[in-house]
């Protein structure tokens, strides 16, 4: 190994100098917390009294015997399975529509994107109004359901909220992918006699696979972490039918002040996301050409 020259040394110094503050922040607020979370999860740690006792894996064993924990895990998975495919398909569909030659394209694109840039507090409040017993949805469809206080529909409503807000966001990702598909491919397909619908399935869908993968990964991570909407729209209720893992962590940490227990639940959530990602990598990752 040759000694690095002066210039190389300079570069190394500068690199670390530039990275210093950013890395410090990331270290303090990302990497340190990850490790610290694991540490905390071995303690019975009450925030209010600031007492902590080492209890080993007791938080985890308690967690696994808590029926609410299992219910929130189930809810989280249900939520993800419900939201991700629909939001991905809808996003792709919207992008496909936006990629056609239509008048006022930027207007429509903006229209679909607005829910995505709107604060979750706003969209959630809006959904409470829309789906309340006398709200617009019931009025329009002649229903009498109180969506958010009915344990059977509360989760559905929150899922609808998420699909509504994120599909526009992912539409833009897809749009970028679509625009990189050469037009000649569609032209060739048209000459071969493919209908618009066939073009969508036979050209668009396979060509945007890398983007689809990316959207699936991001969607999955996002759904597993859903919090804001739950916090505002249902606070986990009714009958815990909308308690997700993130919300479960929050409630245990900042309502019951069981920090160690909350950290343990968060670790489990992280492991869950990590495994789901591994599965995705294994079975859905497009081959790189």
């Amino acid at each position: 190994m040759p000694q690095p020259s002066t210039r190389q040394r300079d570069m190394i110094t500068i690199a670390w100098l530039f990275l210093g503050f950013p890395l410090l922040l990331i270290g303090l607020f990302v990497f340190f917390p990850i490790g610290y979370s694991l540490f905390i999860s071995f303690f019975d740690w009450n925030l209010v009294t600031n007492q902590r006792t080492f209890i080993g894996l007791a938080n985890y064993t308690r967690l696994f015997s808590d029926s609410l924990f299992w219910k929130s895990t189930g809810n989280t998975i249900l939520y993800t399975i419900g939201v991700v495919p629909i939001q991905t398909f809808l996003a792709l569909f919207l992008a496909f529509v936006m990629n056609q030659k239509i008048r006022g394209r930027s207007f429509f694109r903006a229209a679909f994107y607005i829910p995505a840039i709107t604060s979750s507090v706003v969209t959630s409040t809006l959904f409470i109004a829309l789906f309340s017993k006398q709200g617009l949805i019931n009025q329009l469809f002649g229903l009498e359901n109180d969506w958010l206080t009915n344990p059977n529909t509360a989760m559905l409503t929150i899922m609808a909220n998420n699909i509504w807000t994120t599909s526009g966001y992912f539409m833009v990702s897809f749009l970028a992918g679509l625009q990189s598909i050469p037009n000649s491919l569609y032209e060739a397909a048209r000459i071969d006699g493919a209908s618009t619908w066939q073009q969508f399935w036979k050209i668009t869908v396979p060509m945007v696979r890398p983007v689809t993968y990316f959207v699936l990964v991001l969607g999955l991570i996002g759904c597993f972490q859903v919090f804001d909407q739950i916090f505002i729209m249902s606070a986990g209720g009714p009958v815990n039918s909308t308690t997700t893992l993130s919300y479960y962590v929050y409630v245990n940490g900042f309502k019951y002040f069981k920090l160690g227990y909350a950290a343990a639940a968060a670790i489990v959530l992280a492991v869950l996301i990590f495994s789901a990602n591994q599965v995705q990598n294994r079975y859905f990752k497009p081959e790189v050409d």
Partner: protein
Amino acid sequence: MSKLTTCWRYVLVLSIVFTFSGCQSTDTKLTRLSGWSSNPVEEKLVAGVLADFHREKPAVNFKYEPIPGNYTEKIQLMLGTHTAPDVFYLRGETAPSYMRFNVLEPLNQYAADTTFRIDDFYPALLKSFQKGDTLYGVPKDFNPYVLFYNKAMFGEAGLTHPPQNWKELEAFSRRMTKDTNGDGKPDQYGLVLEPTIEMIMAFVYQNGGDFQKEDGTLGILDKNFLDALEYYVRLYRTGAATIPSDLSAKWNGECFGTKKCAMVISSGWLIPELRTNYNDVDWGVAELPVGRQKATIVFTNAYAMPKESIHKKDGWQIIDYLTSQDGLKSVVKQGLALPPRRSVAQNLGLYNDPVKRVFLQSAEFARTFQTTLPERWYEEASVALQMIYFDNKTPREAMEALNRQIESGILQ
């Protein structure tokens, strides 16, 4: 280009300076007083009383900081993060956990002052903020559950007095439950009950039961508890009473105000609603019907100081004033709160008021509903009640499930 660069640099430096300078949290010279802010009217009211206090004791520098939303959690969070206000409202229901965490300043010494006259307070209220003999909060107001009844409906049904006991309650309610338009569903109910543990507990106490017994063990599978619960649920299941959501209402006060029912169990907060939104209702109040014994639930709040506070002297001056005769008088005069001091109620002649008298008398046999369980018990209890009301489980099944959940260690 150079202009852009300069501009950038300027903004950047400024923002760095701002971040690290403008972030000092709270002025430590002020004595901070916090409560929840339920509505702007109440906030103005408190501000008015505090202005009086300021005129009287200008030496005390204080600031009123109401806390919106999730008050209980926020205050615990503040206690845990050393940012708690020097004086804050303490809910009777949550007092045990604070007392258990040992984060409150004992007030016995301060209250021992003879001019303060601690013995003037209703004992039931004081008891809510005591652990053993140690007092951790001075009651500021209270609100017991009483029975509101619609005089017109009672007259129509030929009833001359409000129900005195459980039997009458059920019978009266049945009599006033009727289907006026003949669609097979009643349009007027005798009684609307809320499926909440607090309301149920009033009946449990009347039946001599308890949620958590003196020794800390659960009492929810005891006969006294289950009998009361079964009575309560039976009223609903047999159609003698209903619950607000079945009438598309948010709470039972709304049902009462819209004349969909003849009786509700409620408290002081219903009165302003009736006066402003439903002023065509001719109503009266009575003490709750009696079971084996007289009992009701009282909601009471107190002023407390954190152990960590550095302004305890000033803090006590504020508490002292706000709970003094004068302080309470002005609160009571302006609003609807009931004074926790017997003398204030007497001096203001509240015992002569047909409505207020009922509330004040209820304070004599009222109890604050408290447990020493970790907070999550409440969610679990709600889930158990949901099982009864929405999943058709029997009260016993639901209570057994709740018992399991609590005993399993998650809540310990």
